[in-house]
């Protein structure tokens, strides 16, 4: 395989948050083109930071990072923009203006490849309703095409965000807990669709998931992240319950559960509130 066949290559990468907190140090990760990878791990373990690092939202503090064959932080601005166009990022809470219509929210996925005049004209009169509707139909939301986004439920909004990324047609999809607001059955179907789309188009997919069963069922590679480092990186068949337990018990290393330990159910909430 040539260099192009590696979608993500991180060598000894460090990520330091504003304020000096170290999210990662010495991160090594390699993802082939077309691979479908799930990230699991306790809240606050660094899943979002890892996805933002690969999605070019965070500049690494050290190490080497290549995404889709480019070293993003040492190329010229136009190349960086072209690279961004090839990466689709589904954010944890969909960053969609509440008053925007669903059709515009989905078509916004095309902004990277549309010329500016076409983008502005589409705001007045949606230029590719059919394209948006096609992506929404996959997510069972075609009837909401002209709905305002603040009239949607949390799960529907997440699906609109997914439709936007599908419309963008990127080579690398990064999804940060894309189904967290959906019921288990819908979450299962939606992750299944995401994986099937990636397989059909040969795109690389990296998704962080809270529901471990979804990760084990749909993905061919599962990476456990705890306490700012990769704890395991295995195919789902090779993961045993003890490993999972250790992964989520790594919360203790962060000090949350050290003194006696709060009830298990409280842990995610505590970690989110930190």
């Amino acid at each position: 395989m040539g260099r192009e066949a590696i979608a993500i290559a991180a060598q000894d990468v460090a990520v330091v948050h504003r304020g000096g907190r170290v999210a990662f140090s010495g991160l090594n990760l390699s993802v082939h083109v077309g691979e479908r990878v799930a990230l699991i791990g306790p809240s606050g373990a660094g899943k979002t930071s890892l996805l933002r690092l690969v999605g070019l939202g965070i500049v690494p503090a050290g190490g080497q990072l290549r995404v889709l064959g480019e070293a993003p932080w040492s190329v010229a601005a136009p190349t960086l923009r072209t690279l961004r166009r090839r990466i689709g990022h589904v954010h944890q809470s969909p960053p969609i203006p509440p008053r925007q219509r669903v059709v515009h929210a989905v078509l916004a996925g095309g902004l990277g490849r549309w010329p500016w005049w076409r983008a502005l004209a589409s705001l007045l009169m949606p230029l590719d309703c059919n394209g948006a509707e096609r992506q929404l139909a996959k997510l069972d939301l075609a009837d909401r095409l002209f709905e305002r986004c603040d009239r949607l439920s949390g799960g529907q909004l997440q699906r609109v965000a997914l439709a936007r990324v599908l419309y963008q047609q990127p080579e690398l999809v990064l999804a940060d807990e894309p189904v967290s607001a959906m019921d288990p059955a819908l979450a299962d179907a939606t992750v299944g669709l995401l994986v099937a789309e990636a397989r059909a188009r040969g795109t690389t997919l990296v998704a962080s998931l809270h529901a471990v069963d979804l990760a084990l069922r749909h993905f061919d590679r599962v990476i456990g992240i705890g306490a700012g480092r990769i704890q395991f990186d295995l195919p789902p068949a090779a993961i045993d319950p003890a490993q999972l337990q250790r992964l989520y018990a790594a919360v203790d290393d962060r000090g949350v559960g050290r003194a006696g330990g709060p009830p298990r159910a409280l842990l995610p909430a505590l970690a989110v509130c930190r």
Partner: protein
Amino acid sequence: MSGHARPPKGRAHPFPGEGVAQRREGGEPSAPARPPEGRDRPSLGEGVAPRREGGEPSAPARPPEGRDRPSLGEGVAQRREGGELNPVRPRCVQCRVAVALLVTGVAASFYYLGMPLGRMFEADAWRAMLAFAAGFFPPDLSPSYLARVGRAALETLAISLLGTVLAVFAAALLALPAAGRLGVGARVGARMLLNGLRSVPELVWAALMVLAAGIGPFAGVLALALHTAGVLGRLYAEALENAPPAPEASLVGAGSGAVTAFCYGTLPLVVAQWLAYALYRWEMNIRMAAILGFVGAGGLGTMLYYELSLFREAQASTVIIAMLLLSALVDTASQWLRADRPEGAR
């Protein structure tokens, strides 16, 4: 002023602020049971309540009527007895000082302006006022004059509309640098420009524009546009600064250009607010456009100024009624537009 010259009896009827100090003088020495709370400024309740208990024996000649008049302090004392844990904080000293200053200021202003307040209550003055008011009735309702007033009202409406629309465009353009999107220098410059536009009133702009562009509606349009651009630009910039950055940032992160990312990510967040501000300012500008005519900027104002100068009260009355109708129309329309927003948004 006159409070100092009041007889001691005035104590029972305290001038705010002053009365408290006096009561404290009388109350404090005779308050042996006062808890050592370590407060250097006794609260109103503390200062007053002991006086009523301990102070009264030392003033036996005091008529009991003072009790019937519930003083401020009494209410506080009762509330304290009612078992409230925290003592009620005193009414602020600043309020009393402010009221005293206001009263003094009003009195001084009357004196300084030499206004004969007494004449307002003379029958003569009332008769003269009524005669003046009667001159405005009946209004001139002849069709030809109504047509002229109608044309002037349309001119006022057109001035306000054009002035506001121009202002909205200028404000949107200035709001981007003023919200700090083009760097710190542009932000400071745009803010200074907006401050300048805003701090000159419409009437002054109109007087200047009449000099610059000549008498007529164009001067009115420019005057409204300049002032309103300053006001709206500031409001628009603040709306932009308060908008969450995530939607636009995510589009830029997906390779979108700056302009399109703004239009898809941030504009939908602020556009409703921008529109509401624009409607509100338009409403104000219609009223203002009616007045701008006084300095020669066209519309109903010019007509009113003209008729009043010639003492043609009947005609002036028609113009004033037209102004009132225009205002009512604008109010209704604007109310309807605003009420319609959430409905249509559903």
